[in-house]
């Protein structure tokens, strides 16, 4: 009798899990559709060749990863995690996103007087040297940053991308999170199925 009750409970759990899986599946399908629609809109505004596999970067690093762990019921659980590795060089660039045009010093500047010319020349030479020594690293830094494999995949498609491409990205990010949830549910369903099978075999004997 006890085994029978346990089996009944397992079957109810199994049904609940399947129902939940079906619901999640429906939302995943809707989100993917939404993502494709946004991608198509972006392709329409950018041109056919500008949203294709030809735009993929030659260096890629994942921005999202999956953590797996065994839950209480011995079923594997999946969860997504965004990788946010910010390099010092990126931090520097983030601090000054817009290029400054014009004089660096604020306020009124004085013209160079004739008698000060020799002194000024020396100072100018010194600052020039300084600029020469400091410029190359900053240039290489910005180059490195542009080609960084950790860069946002949106940048593969250009610097000024349409809003629809950003919408597509956000839809697919949600799909990725949801897919981890579905993978967890699938594992749970399979686990319950095994337990039910075992229970039914025991019941027969």
């Amino acid at each position: 009798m006890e085994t029978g009750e346990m089996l009944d409970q397992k079957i109810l759990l199994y049904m609940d899990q399947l129902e939940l899986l079906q619901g999640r599946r429906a939302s995943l399908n809707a989100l993917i559709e939404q993502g494709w629609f946004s991608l198509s809109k972006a392709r329409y505004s950018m041109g056919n060749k500008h949203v294709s596999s030809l735009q993929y970067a030659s260096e890629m690093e994942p921005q999202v990863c999956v953590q797996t762990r065994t839950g209480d019921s011995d079923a594997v659980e999946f969860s997504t995690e965004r990788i946010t590795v910010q390099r010092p060089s990126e931090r520097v660039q983030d601090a000054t996103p817009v290029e400054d045009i014009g004089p660096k010093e604020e306020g009124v500047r004085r013209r160079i007087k004739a008698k000060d010319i020799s002194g000024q020349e020396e100072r100018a030479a010194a600052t020039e040297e300084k600029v020469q020594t400091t410029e190359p690293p900053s240039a290489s830094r910005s180059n490195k940053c542009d080609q960084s494999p950790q860069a946002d995949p949106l940048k593969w498609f250009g610097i000024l991308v349409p809003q629809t491409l950003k919408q597509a990205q956000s839809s697919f990010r949600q799909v990725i999170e949801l897919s981890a949830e579905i993978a967890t549910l699938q594992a749970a369903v399979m686990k319950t199925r095994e337990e039910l099978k075992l229970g039914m075999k025991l019941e027969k004997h």
Partner: protein
Amino acid sequence: MAGRGKLIAVIGDEDTCTGFLLGGIGELNKNRKPNFLVVEKDTSITEIEETFKSFLVRSDIGIILINQFIAEMIRHAIDAHMESIPAVLEIPSKEHPYDASKDSILRRAKGMFSAEDFR
């Protein structure tokens, strides 16, 4: 790799792969092996199957996403995969909507209540 989680791999048409790569799952490892396969008209079934099997044996992959119409081409390989890691998820494609009756996991689940299981 130490400390970092597992990857999500994709086997799909161009739009599916582009979308997921936009989402940030793409990786090219040290051997320049990608974790995705863009299936085009001229991609052979053997190539798809080999890629799928290579994803199965890679220890750094946690989930494999595959378009259902592509999964249909290599159904035997998907049905043979019984481990929970990597998890295989069948997703719809632009031309082929998702059909639950074709999904490997749901077919297994449905099989639970078939006459065979009660014997």
